[in-house]
């Protein structure tokens, strides 16, 4: 592997910039004549807009313009769209209600934008925004998805009667019902998956620049996928054709999914820049982020799991209601369907599965993919059900899982997925050993002596990364392909630029992608630069989400490297008068195998560009590109074990240990992988113990709109994690990579909740398991 190659624990190249405050984020961007935008937002969760009077605001000091939704409509700017078509089981297409970038008729959640104010300073823009008079007629509100489906509830969109967006199913209902009817035991449970706010450290921001000379737009934005942003803004929102729109996502301080989507603010700032003639910058404050960043999860599911007399699962039936909020965000329809229900087989050989999913509009912020996107929902549901079943059946949780593990691959599940490789026993064994599972009884007894209730719980998760192949996702309704692109440019002096359509917003691509090159050519990673996040530099790409950058983005780099290597070898062979097949590349040199003839890498590169002595017919230069479309998803899996102590007097849960044993396939940089797991675990533990988006059900006000009320996990909420990997390489991509970005957040919540319910002897517990809930459950009968 070499000191900087594949598998090396290389320190992150980008950290110096980030840790010394030298990062360049969207809000750091400044251009001549730039002005500041503030959005006027609805204080009501549901209301008709009778009128908007901006006369007073326009007259205020420093104000350049106040624009509203009628003007936006008149200029032909389109609706925001959901890019994944789902059909209900009756064949009808999903009911997509109109989402205007600036509402001009109806507002549907607190924070819905109705106007933009552009002024010389943020303070002046805020002053003027307060002076915009919006006359609202309040309408009744519904925030709960199950309630929104009932008769007589407030209706959000005329397109969607009873607020139902689609009623979709997957799997075989008849076979599943038959299995349940014939079962020796059926475990039934209701599972609630709480609503979360993504909270990236950097709030969203955008800078829209219109250049009247060329009729050209530039959009700096906090995006995980600038090319998708450009595609959607030109194809659907009529902002500008692609050749007239440059999207740049510079350093981005975390996304967790929330920066995949195109939001009203990007579109409106670009449009406002043209309307007002000045570059327009908007930066979200934290409360705006709580109000308007797409939320995650919010599912309620009823589950039946059927077992035969040998404790083998023979059927699984799931009925889920998913809250999508006031509007359908860009990938909102895919999350509770193809990213969720297709994972309901877990690590288990289940012959019959049926899942029904209804998605619903409510007067809340839009809900879309958030770290894990669908797989945490599936995992939490399955792994709580397995734990519950083990208790009901009187089998140890590990034993019940082992009885049902899939052991032969490839394995076709009844819900589309075809698992390519895995060894679930290996991660279960590793986790149980690391957690000293067998010593638990003694530890529990010791804790009881101190008046504490100790519990242990596990979770065996599987997830799917690098969603693919494009033709398959297209047939399931995706509006885009899910390949990735790369270009490798070798400069005349031998330094290398790798252009990628992946986007790094904390994942460390500048290091790991460079490690691929270092590994291949033996050059130092300092001579390799990763270029990403700018549609003028990288031609096209699909961005970063769903843990796809390694499996898909790096595979594209590998394909481009193959082409560079082939040409480099031809040049070297020509220079050394050797046969191309005898050339090997080692330590930055091209050598003729078995001889002492060598050409240094930089000399070969120079030869490519001087073109004085190239093989006959060869084009000068050394630059190759590739597109990579994977053959399948990848399937990371693992086992997490959590041990807790509950204080019965207060209900406080203390995590004593947390073990994560993952199978991520081959690993490029173990340190970065561990970092991803740690971060994911913190997020999953946050969901399980602390975090909850809380709307007032009466009026739809967001009650958790700041960190005073929204509880983020902090260092002292977390134990020191014990992480390890045991890897089966993925057979479907050249690097054998599976993906590690979301696993921690996917696998951890059920392990933690299973541990708490074990400790208190009551399975009726919902996330977040706050001290009050745990205290009440501990003192109630099961």
């Amino acid at each position, binding site marked *: 592997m070499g000191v900087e190659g594949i598998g090396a624990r290389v320190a992150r190249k980008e950290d110096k910039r980030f840790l010394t405050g030298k990062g360049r984020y969207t809000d750091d961007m400044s251009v001549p004549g730039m002005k500041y935008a503030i959005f006027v937002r609805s204080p009501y969760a549901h209301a008709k807009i009778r009128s908007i009077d901006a006369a007073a605001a326009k007259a205020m000091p420093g104000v350049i313009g106040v624009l509203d939704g009628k003007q936006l409509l008149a200029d032909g700017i389109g609706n925001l769209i959901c890019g994944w078509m789902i059909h209900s089981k009756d064949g009808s297409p999903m009911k997509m209600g109109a989402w205007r970038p600036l509402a001009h008729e109806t507002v549907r959640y607190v924070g819905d934008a109705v106007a933009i104010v552009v002024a010389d300073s943020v303070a002046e823009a805020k002053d003027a925004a307060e002076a915009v008079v919006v006359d609202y007629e309040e309408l009744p509100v519904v925030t709960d998805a199950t309630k929104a489906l009932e008769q007589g509830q407030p209706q959000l969109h005329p397109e969607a009667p009873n607020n139902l967006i689609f009623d979709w199913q997957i799997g075989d209902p008849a076979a599943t019902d038959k299995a349940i009817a014939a079962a020796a035991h059926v475990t039934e449970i209701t599972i609630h998956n709480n609503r979360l706010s993504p909270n990236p450290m950097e709030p969203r921001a955008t800078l829209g620049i219109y250049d009247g000379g060329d009729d050209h737009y530039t959009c700096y934005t906090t995006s995980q996928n600038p090319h998708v942003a450009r595609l959607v803004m030109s194809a659907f929102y009529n902002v500008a054709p692609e050749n007239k729109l440059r999207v740049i996502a510079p350093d981005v301080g975390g996304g967790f999914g929330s920066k995949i989507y195109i939001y009203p603010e990007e579109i409106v700032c670009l449009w406002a820049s043209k309307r007002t003639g000045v570059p327009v910058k908007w930066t979200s404050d934290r409360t705006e982020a709580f109000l308007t960043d797409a939320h995650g999860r919010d599912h309620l599911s009823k589950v039946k799991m059927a077992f035969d007399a040998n404790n083998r699962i023979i059927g699984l039936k799931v009925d889920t209601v998913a809250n999508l909020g006031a509007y359908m965000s860009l990938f909102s329809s895919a999350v509770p369907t193809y990213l969720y229900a297709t994972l309901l087989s877990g690590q288990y050989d289940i012959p019959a599965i049926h899942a029904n999913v209804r998605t619903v509009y409510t007067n809340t912020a839009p809900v879309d993919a958030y770290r894990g996107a669908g797989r945490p929902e599936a995992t939490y549901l399955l792994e709580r059900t397995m734990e519950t079943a083990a208790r009901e059946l009187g089998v140890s949780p590990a034993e019940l899982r082992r009885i049902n593990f899939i052991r032969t691959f490839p394995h076709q599940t009844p819900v589309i997925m075809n698992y390519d490789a895995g060894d679930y026993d290996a991660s279960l064994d590793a986790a149980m050993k690391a957690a000293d599972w067998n010593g638990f009884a003694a530890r529990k007894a010791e804790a009881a002596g101190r008046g504490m209730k100790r519990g242990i719980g596990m979770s065996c998760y599987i997830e799917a990364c690098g969603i693919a192949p494009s033709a398959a996702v297209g047939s399931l309704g995706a509006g885009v392909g899910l390949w990735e692109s790369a270009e490798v440019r070798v400069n005349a002096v031998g330094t290398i630029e790798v252009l990628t359509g992946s986007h790094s917003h904390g994942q460390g691509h500048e290091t790991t992608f460079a490690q691929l090159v270092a590994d291949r050519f033996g050059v130092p990673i300092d001579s390799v630069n990763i270029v990403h996040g700018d549609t003028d530099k990288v031609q096209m790409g699909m961005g970063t989400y769903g843990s796809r950058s390694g499996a898909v983005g790096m595979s594209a780099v590998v394909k481009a490297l193959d082409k560079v290597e082939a040409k480099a070898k031809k040049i070297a062979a020509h220079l050394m008068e050797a046969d191309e097949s005898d050339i090997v590349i080692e330590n930055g040199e091209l050598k003729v195998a078995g001889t002492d003839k060598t050409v240094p890498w930089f000399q070969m590169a120079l030869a490519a560009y001087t073109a004085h002595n190239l093989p006959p017919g060869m084009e000068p230069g050394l630059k190759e590109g590739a597109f990579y479309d994977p053959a399948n998803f990848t399937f990371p899996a693992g086992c997490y074990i959590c041990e807790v102590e509950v204080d019965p007097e207060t209900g406080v849960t203390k995590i004593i240990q947390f073990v994560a044993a993952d199978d991520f396939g081959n690993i490029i940089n173990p340190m970065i992988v561990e970092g991803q797991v740690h971060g994911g675990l913190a997020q999953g533990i946050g969901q399980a113990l602390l975090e909850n988006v809380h709307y007032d059900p009466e009026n739809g006000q967001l009650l958790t709109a700041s960190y005073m009320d929204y509880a983020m996990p902090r260092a002292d909420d977390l134990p020191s994690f014990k992480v390890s990997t045991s890897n089966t390489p993925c057979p479907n991509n050249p690097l054998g990579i599976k993906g590690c970005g979301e696993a921690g957040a996917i696998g951890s919540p059920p392990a933690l909740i299973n541990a708490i319910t074990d400790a208190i002897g009551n399975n009726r517990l919902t996330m977040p398991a706050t001290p009050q809930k745990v205290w*009440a459950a501990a003192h109630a009968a099961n």
Partner: protein
Amino acid sequence: MYETHYHRASSIQDAVKLRQAAGEGKYLSGGMTLIPTMKQRLAAPSDLVDVRQVPEMKGISVSGRTVRIGAATTHFDVASSSELAALCPAISGLASHIGDPHVRHMGTIGGSIANNDPAADYPSAMLALDATIITDRREIAAGDFFTGLFETALEDGELVTAVTFEAPAKAGYQKFANPASRYAMTGVFVVRRDNGDVRVAVTGAGSNGVFRHEGIEAALSAQWSPDALANVTVDPSDLLSDIHADATYRANLVKVMAKRAVAAARAD
């Protein structure tokens, strides 16, 4: 934030004068509550009179068992005073758990009690210690000072300059932190005097702010031990319910925190 005018007071007199001269003025101490409120445009004082540099309002002095803490003394200074730690470690411990290091280096005791946030820590200490709040014009007993949610006996323009109290024989404070804000979801400060008098004040839980709990006081007067609380009941009807905890749970916390505060006081 709306436009405002900043003044730095050099003395108590100067502060009061500046405040009187201002239209809609406010005293500014650590700014840990006031500045965020202004940033959110929920407060719009025309003038800020900064009292943190007033020499008479800074620092801790001890004579015998009488403690005086200047209103502009930071939480960090209270937490790290060795004199105070020797006389009344409970108040040092309380100060050391307010917010985070930034907050403790800026926020002050005067600002905290003048603000009287129902979830703030100091009000419980002041009430249990039977402290006297000294202002530019009078002395107010803690029992008369805290009058409701964010309400105090302070008149318009009245400046808290210091607090004083007699160090008790025993004192203990236990805080159950709100998981999000880490303010007190319930905090209980217990004090026992040499003469056997017991005062117990509860913050974070009362629907009308900090209060004394007579049932707990009576039980602890009879027997100064955590076990004495076994049969005490805490009535939830006057307690807060919010998205973090309901009144029933807070009632449980009042009792548990009181027990633990007594245990902590006995151990000191």
